[in-house]
Structure formats: structure tokens, C-alpha cells
């Protein structure tokens, strides 16, 4: 039995050791908001939080995540109250097809938590720090705008 704590809820799952955290979330917990774009750590679509840090769930084995707190896109909103980053993404139209969006949002939230002086984050720094999240639709300029909005 693998014990996972996801968005504050505890789960006991009968998992194959091969199951990645991404597949555990999607196939076993029904949390399909986290996306699989490449399954090899090369796109960022599967970004989730583990103990508050952003990681790629496609390269993390689920069994190795026991005792850690996992956060996904589904855990951000409180009822109808969206997270400020989600709101900013809507306001700035920081998405098109939406497939990279959960990963971008999870990454952006953790990114802001990583820096002490958020206000000093200029565009170049934000772009570099967000470069692990690819967006084929090219929503990048609006994603940057959304992050700027939340940063201040």
C-alpha cells in the first residue's frame, strides 16, 4: 500500500512500484488536471508541488513520495474562490488550448515562493525561471503578464 497525501487528503493506494506520481494522480485518484505532455521531464505540463516545491510528477515514482505533501491544480481554489494566480491567468488570457496551463500555474506559484524579493523579479528573471514550462500555443507573453500581476 502506498500512502499519498494530496491536497490535504490522505489516500491509500494499491500501486505498481512503476507508477509515477503523475499516473497515480491521473489514473488512480482521478485528478486529471495535471497533464502529461512528454512523460520525460521535458515540458513541465506535469508540474505539481511536493512539500511546497515545484517538481515534475512524470519523473517522480509515487512510492517515493510517501510522507510528503503533494499539491495539484485541483487543490488551489477554495470553493469558488480561485487562487490569485488562476485569476490572473484568466484576466491576462494566459492560456489558449489550456493544456500547459495547470503546469504553468503550479510552476508560477512555486516560483514566486522561491524568491525572497519578488518585486526584484524582472521580466528576464521570470522568463528564465519559468523556462521549464513549455507552451506550444505561445501564451508566454500573457503568462508573463499574469505573473507580473500577482508578483506585486
Amino acid at each position: 500500500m502506498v500512502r499519498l497525501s494530496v491536497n490535504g487528503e490522505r489516500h491509500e493506494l494499491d500501486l505498481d512500484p512503476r507508477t509515477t506520481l503523475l499516473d497515480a494522480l491521473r489514473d488512480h485518484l482521478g485528478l486529471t488536471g495535471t497533464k502529461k505532455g512528454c512523460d520525460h521531464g521535458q515540458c513541465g505540463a506535469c508540474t505539481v508541488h511536493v512539500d511546497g516545491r515545484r517538481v515534475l510528477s512524470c519523473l517522480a515514482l509515487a512510492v517515493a513520495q510517501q510522507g510528503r505533501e503533494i499539491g495539484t491544480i485541483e487543490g488551489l481554489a477554495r470553493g469558488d474562490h480561485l487562487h490569485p494566480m488562476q485569476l490572473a491567468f484568466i484576466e491576462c488570457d494566459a492560456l489558449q488550448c489550456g493544456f500547459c496551463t495547470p503546469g504553468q500555474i503550479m510552476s508560477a506559484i512555486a516560483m514566486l515562493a522561491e524568491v525572497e524579493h519578488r518585486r526584484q523579479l524582472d521580466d528576464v528573471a521570470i522568463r528564465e525561471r519559468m523556462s521549464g514550462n513549455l507552451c506550444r500555443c505561445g501564451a508566454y507573453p500573457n503568462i508573463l503578464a499574469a505573473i507580473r500581476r500577482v508578483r506585486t
Partner: protein
Amino acid sequence: MRPFTYVEGISVADAAAAVHAAPAAMFLAGGTAIVDLMKLGVLAPAALVDVQRLPLGDIELDDRRARIGACVRNAQLAEHPEIRARWPVVREALLSGMSAQLRNMSTVAGNILQRTRCPYYRDPHSACNKRVPGSGCAVQTGWDRDAAVLGGSPHCLAVFPSDLATALAILDAIVYTRRGDGGARRLPFDGFHRLPGDTPERDTVLDHGELVTHLELPDLAIARRSHYFKVRDRASYDFALASAAVALDLERGHVRDARIALGGVATRPWRCTAAEQSLRGKRAELASFRAAADLALADAVARTHNGFKIELARHVVVRALSELAARPG
């Protein structure tokens, strides 16, 4: 992925013994290299021994050295204020590679033990001596834009891709290990990675079941003025086409001592001692840097599509040294 058993390492000795005892067992750290390769069918360990919860996650510092636990995350190492002050090249190398997510997951030991990105190595259908000893090397007749220009052999031309390892190569780093039979080793970083020769399947001198426990960086005055410069196709989130780790000890515009290593162009982290030697006593200026860069690449061998790497690496060395020399010191 082939089915495997997952074992959580309890102690350093047990973890090493567990892998030592099972020929098809491997260590699991951040998983960013090994899980990737298992999905591709390149690696198929029967057991994974997870080392992430072993007490190897700390960075200890004193005047003489830094002692970096094997399981320290690459992000943690890059952000450490004292590492940044005393060994800036380490931080710069780490931040020039991977993505923030990958740096949060991956460990220092995992990074220097990652495998090549050679596309034939990553494709189980291709001939590759590194993956299947004796099967041949597809690059010799195939697509070689990414192949090494230094340190290759007729059996393998694969670039060793770690940025961190390139930085460590100029820092007199030491790798500490625990062997499966209980012994321990202290391995100078210089000899840690092997040339491919006719046994490209072995990247390092580690034995099966030998666990890396720590890296040590001795305090080094020259390391305080050190720098990493990397060129890649994409502006970020990409491996090096060519990179250089450099350090300079300057006195009144002259080079007292220099360190240079190349990444992205060689089959192992590539220290350029002749180039370093050539700089000693010279003025810290473009002409000296150019001469050093020529020496660094003197033995480089171009193949069909990778010749640009020689030219590029020269410029990268010159650029790295020039930027560093221009830094207030």
C-alpha cells in the same frame, strides 16, 4: 518499464550492501535520469534502492572545505549563500542547466552520474556500445552533430552532459563513497569519470553497489573568482553545445593561476591543463585568452557535423575568461 522492487534505503551501509548483493539493482535518487531511462527501456533494474532518505542531504561548511551530501538537491546547492560566495562557478553551472523543477528534484550525485544524451544511446533499437557493450557505435556512421570532439574513441563519441561536473572539474573536488562490501573510497574528481576507450559502458570508476556519500570542495582561493559560460540552441532548458568552467587568480592585470574545463564537447568533464599553464604569468587580455583557447581545443577532432563545436568552444573559453577577468575582483 520492467517490473522492479522498490526498497527504501535505511542506512548508508545497508543501501550499498543491498545494491551490491543484487547485480540488477540500482540506486534511486531524484529519479530524473533513471526513471527517464527506464521508461525508454534503456535501463531495466530489477530493484531500486531509494537513497533519498539517507542522512546525505546536508551541506556542511568550514574554512577548509564544503562537504556536500550526495542527496543534496541541485537547487539547494545552487541557492546556498556560501557556495555562491566561495564557489560561484557551481551555482552558475547548476542554474544554466535543467529547469527549476528538475533542480528541485535531482541530486548532486545523480547529476554527476547522469548518462549521455546521445540519441542512439537513448534508442534501444540502435547499435550502442555504451548501452549494449559490443553492439557497435551508430554515431560513427550516423548523425554526429551532438558528438564529442574531445576524448572520443572508435567505440564511443558520446558527450558527457553534466554542467555541474564541468564546474567540479576545476575545483579539485573529491568524491567519497561507501562500497557494498563495507569499504570506503576517496576519489579525486579528476579521475572519477572515465574516457570511453573500448569500455564506454562504464562512465565512472565506481563499482557496482558503490554509493556516493559526499562531494568535497576544498577551500580554494582561485575558486572565488570562477565562472561558468554555456551556449545552447535554446535560450534556456537545454543542454550545452559548448560550455566552459573557468577560474582566474589575477594580480595587477596578470594571470597568476587559471583553471579551465570544457563541457558539452567531450566524453568526460574536460580539464585543460595545458591551456591553464599557458596563461600563467600572461597579461589577462584577449590575446592570452585566445592562445589558451587554441590550446584547449588543440586535440579536438571534428566529424561530419560537429566541427562547429571546436570553433564554438574556443569562443566560449575566450568569452568565459574575458567576462571573468572583467569582474571586479
